[in-house]
C-alpha cells in the first residue's frame, strides 16, 4: 500500500462527490466487517463548525449534516460490528462542531442507549467540542445520560483567539471561559486538548497554567505537524515541554491533581510491558469513523479529502473493504517500520505514528515525516530525563493514578 498511494485529490475531484440516497436500515447490515471487534465509532454528525481553526485538517469545510437515519444506522452498525466484544462500546460525536447538531444528538442517544441495553451491552456517548456552543439544556441532557466531554481548547486567550477564531473572525476565548466551568462542574476529570502551532509554541507553559487555572486537571498538548515548523520552533517546543515537565513534576510531588498526558502516558509506557503494542492507535481496528454521508473510515483523521477516498472502508450499504482493514489489523510496527527508526533514540518509547499524518506528510503508510519524528523525540527526551518523575512513579502513586 505504501507505494501505491494516490496523490491528494483536486478541488474538482472533491466537487464530484455524489450525494447519497436516504439511508435504509439494511444498509448497516450490508456493510459489516468480517472481523467483528469494533468498539468505538467516531460519529461526524456535521462538518459545519462555528470556529475557523488555522490548522484544521478538514480543510474543505462544507456544511454537510448527518441525517437521522444514517446516525441510527451507525449505532446499529456498531452494535453488530462489535460482535462478542464485552467491554464498553463508545460513540464519540465529532465534527465540525457536534453541538451544532444537538437536535440529532437528543434523538439518537436514547435510541442507542436503549438498543445497547437490550443487547446486554454498555454504550457510552462522548463528544469532542470547542466549548463555545454549550447551553444549560445540553448540560442537563449530558447529565441525564452520563455522557462524556473532550474539550478542544488551545490555551491563553491570545493563543485561543489567534488559532481558533470564530467563523466571522471574532474571539472565541470568552465563550470558552464561560462554558468550561459548567463542564468541569459536571466532570472534573475532563481533558483539555490543546493543539500547538509554530505561532503558539512559545506560550505553551502559560497555556498550561491558564488551563489549570480554569480548573482542568488533565490536559494534553499536541503539535500540529501539518503546519510549517522551523528549526527554532522545535527548539521552542522543547523548551516549552521542559517547563511543562517541571510543572507536572511539581504537581506530582505536591500531590496536586494535575496531569499532562504526554508524560503520564509516556512514563507508564516505559515501565509497562502491557502497553507495548505493535499498533500506533486503534484506528481501523477497534475504532471506525462514520462521516455525515454514512461512509466508514479508519478514524476521524481520514476522509474523502485524503487520497481520493482510498482509505474508505465502505459506504453504508456496500460491502466492507476487509482487505483494507487487514492492513490495519496486521500492521506491525516492528516489521514495517521505516529504516530510520533503527537508530532513533526514541525508538524504545515511541508508540509509533499517526496513520493519517503519515499519509498527509509522506504519502506512505509507514513514514510519519520529519516534523512528527522531531516532536516525538522531544517527548521521549523529556520522559527519560526526569529521574525524579520515575522515582515518584516507583512509589506506586504515579501519574494518572
Amino acid at each position, binding site marked *: 500500500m505504501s507505494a501505491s498511494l494516490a496523490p491528494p485529490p483536486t478541488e474538482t475531484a472533491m466537487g464530484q462527490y455524489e450525494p447519497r440516497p436516504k439511508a435504509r436500515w439494511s444498509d448497516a447490515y450490508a456493510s459489516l466487517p468480517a472481523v467483528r471487534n469494533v468498539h468505538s465509532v467516531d460519529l461526524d454528525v456535521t462538518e459545519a463548525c462555528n470556529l475557523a481553526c488555522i490548522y484544521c485538517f478538514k480543510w474543505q469545510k462544507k456544511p454537510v449534516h448527518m441525517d437521522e437515519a444514517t446516525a441510527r444506522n451507525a449505532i446499529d452498525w456498531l452494535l453488530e460490528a462489535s*460482535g462478542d466484544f464485552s*467491554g464498553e462500546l463508545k460513540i464519540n460525536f465529532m465534527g465540525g462542531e457536534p453541538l451544532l447538531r444537538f437536535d440529532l444528538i437528543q434523538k439518537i442517544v436514547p435510541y442507542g442507549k436503549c438498543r445497547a441495553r437490550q443487547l446486554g*451491552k454498555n454504550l457510552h456517548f462522548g463528544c469532542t467540542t470547542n466549548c463555545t456552543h454549550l447551553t444549560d439544556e445540553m448540560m442537563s441532557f449530558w447529565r441525564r445520560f452520563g455522557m462524556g466531554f473532550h474539550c478542544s481548547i488551545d490555551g491563553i486567550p491570545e493563543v485561543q483567539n489567534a488559532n481558533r477564531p470564530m467563523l466571522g473572525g471574532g474571539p472565541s476565548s470568552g465563550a470558552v471561559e464561560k462554558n468550561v466551568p459548567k463542564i468541569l462542574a459536571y466532570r472534573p476529570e475532563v481533558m483539555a486538548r490543546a493543539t500547538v502551532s509554530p505561532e503558539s509554541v512559545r506560550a505553551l507553559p502559560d497555556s498550561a497554567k491558564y488551563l489549570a487555572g480554569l480548573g482542568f486537571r488533565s490536559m494534553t498538548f499536541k503539535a500540529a505537524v501539518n503546519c510549517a515548523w522551523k528549526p527554532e520552533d522545535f527548539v521552542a517546543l522543547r523548551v516549552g515541554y521542559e517547563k511543562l515537565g517541571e510543572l507536572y513534576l511539581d504537581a506530582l510531588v505536591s500531590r496536586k491533581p494535575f496531569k499532562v498526558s504526554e508524560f503520564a502516558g509516556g512514563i507508564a509506557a516505559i515501565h509497562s510491558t502491557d502497553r507495548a503494542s505493535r499498533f500506533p492507535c486503534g484506528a481501523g481496528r477497534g475504532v471506525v469513523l462514520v462521516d455525515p454521508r454514512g461512509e466508514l473510515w479508519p478514524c476521524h483523521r481520514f476522509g474523502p479529502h485524503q487520497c481520493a477516498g482510498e482509505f474508505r472502508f465502505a459506504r453504508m450499504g456496500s460491502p466492507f473493504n476487509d482487505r483494507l482493514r487487514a492492513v490495519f489489523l496486521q500492521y506491525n510496527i516492528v516489521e514495517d517500520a521505516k529504516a530510520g527508526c533503527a537508530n532513533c533514540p526514541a525508538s524504545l518509547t515511541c508508540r509509533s505514528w499517526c496513520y493519517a499524518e503519515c499519509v498527509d506528510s509522506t504519502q506512505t503508510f509507514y513514514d510519519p515525516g520529519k516534523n512528527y519524528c522531531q516532536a516525538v523525540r522531544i517527548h521521549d527526551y523529556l520522559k527519560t530525563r526526569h529521574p525524579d518523575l520515575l522515582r515518584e512513579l516507583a512509589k506506586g502513586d504515579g501519574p494518572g493514578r
Partner: protein
Amino acid sequence: MRGLTGEALGNAAVRARDLRCVVASVAPPFRTAYWPDSKALVAQLGLPPALADKLGEPEGRSQLVGALAAKGAAGLPFRAGGAGSTAGPQDVRRKEALRRGRRSVVFLGRCSREVVLGALELVTDGLAPEGLVNVKFEGWDALEDWETGRECASAACAYLIQTRRCRCKVVLFTELKEVPADLWVFTYDRPRVRIGWAATELAAVGEPGEFAELRESSVALRHIEHVVNLGLWPHIVLPASDLNVRLLPQLTSALLEATRGGSIEIPPLPFLGGLGGLGHGAGSDHLSPGSNRGAVRCPSAEAYAQALVAIYEERRIPLRLVSPLAWVAARVESEVPMASSLAAAGVEVAVLPDGELYAAEAAAGLESWRLGNVSEGHGGIRWERLDLMPEFFANSVRRGPCASCDWRWRCGGVGGEVVFSEEAARLQGKCDTGDLVPEGGRKCAVQGEHATGAVEAAAGPDGGGTGSALFDLYCEPRKRLFEEMLWGTVEAAADGKPRQERERLQLRQDGIDFTPVKN
C-alpha cells in the same frame, strides 16, 4: 430430484440439483457430503466420465442414484448416522435437556400479580441457571391498560432478576392504539421487556400500494415507528393470509426497515392463536379488511411455502429476525437432533387469568391438557401430563407422514399449534382428524374459530379431504426451507463463499437472546 432416502442408503438421503449432488444423513449424527463438481462425483463412483455432463437428464440421474445405492453410504466420504433412530432413553434425555435449557409462559388475559409470580415460580423450577425464559402477555392490550401491563411486566422482571434468570425476555402484546409516555424509562430500566404487535391489519394487504396507504392511515404503524425511534426492538406477528401471501417478502422487508431490525414472526392465519384480535374465541371477523374485501382466509400451504422461500432468497433479510426461517436455520446447522417441535414437551405452559395452567398456548381450554391451577402450588400440578409428551413426540416422528421424512430428526415433528388445534376442531365436531392425543375428559372452551375453521375447510371436499390442512401448513414450508438452506450451503461452497452462507445460518448475535456483559 429426490433419489433415495432412508434405509436404502443406510440412513442417508441423496439429492441432486444443477449437476451437484448431496448425500445427507436423515438421523443423527447429522453429516453431509457433497460434490460441487459432477466429474469428481462420477469418478468416485466409478461411473463413465461422460456421465458427468448428463446428470441433469433423467437417464443420468437414474444411473447416479443407482450407483450411489449400490455403493452405499459407507463407501462415500460420509459417516451415516445410527444413533437416535430407535426410540428409548435418549428421547427422555433430550426432553430433559430441553426442559433444563428453556421455558416459556404465555399469560392469556389480564393476570394478577399473584398469578404471574405463582406461574413463574412453577415454570422456572428445575431450569438450569443459564436457561432461557420467555414470558408473553397476550389476550389484552398491555399498552392501552398500561397500569396492569406495567404491573405484570414489573412483577415478571423483578422475579426473573431476583432469581438470576439473566437470559429472559418479556413480551407485552398490544394493538398499539397508544404509547405510554414513560415507556422508554420503563424499558430502559427493564431491558428484557419487548413490545409485541399482532399485525392483523396487514393480513388484508393484497397490493403493494395498500401497504403504503396503510402506513399513512394506520395508527399502529405510526406508533410502531415511534416505539422504534425510542430504541426498542418490537416483535411483530405478521399473519400470512390468502391475500398477503404473495406480498410477504416485500412486507417483511418493509417491516424490518420500519422497525429497524425488529423480529418478525410469520405464522399462517390459523396459527395466530390467542393473538387474533388479542383475545381468544374472537373468531375470524376481526380479520375482515373491510366491507369491500370480504374476510381474509388461510393461505394455501404451497403459496405460504413459496413466500417463505422467497424471503430466504432475499439476501438482505437477516434470517435470525424472521420466524420460522430462524427456526429452520437453527436446526439445519445443528449437530443435535431436535427433541420435539411440540412446545408442550414440558417447555411451554399457558396460564389463564384465573390461574388455570395448560400444557401449551394452543392447548388452552383443552381439559385433557389442563395441568392444574397456580394457586394449588407444585403439589397440585399434574406434571405427569407433560411426561406423556416424550412418548408422544417419539411416536410422532415415526408414524404418518413424518416417518418417511428426511428431516424428521432435525424438525422434531409437528408443533402444538397443529396437534391441539386439530384436537379442538375434532372435539367441536368440525372434522375427524387422527386421534394423536390420549383420551381424557375433553372439552374446548377457548380455541378460536379461525383455527378450527381452517381444519374444517381442509376436511371438506375443497380441501382435498385430508383432514390435516394445519399439518400441511406447518410441514410443507419447513421442508422446503430445509431443502433450500441445504442447497444454499452447497452452492455457496461451490462458489467459494461458504462463510457468508454459514454466517447467515448461524444467526449471529440474536437481538433478543444474549449473554449479559460483565461490567
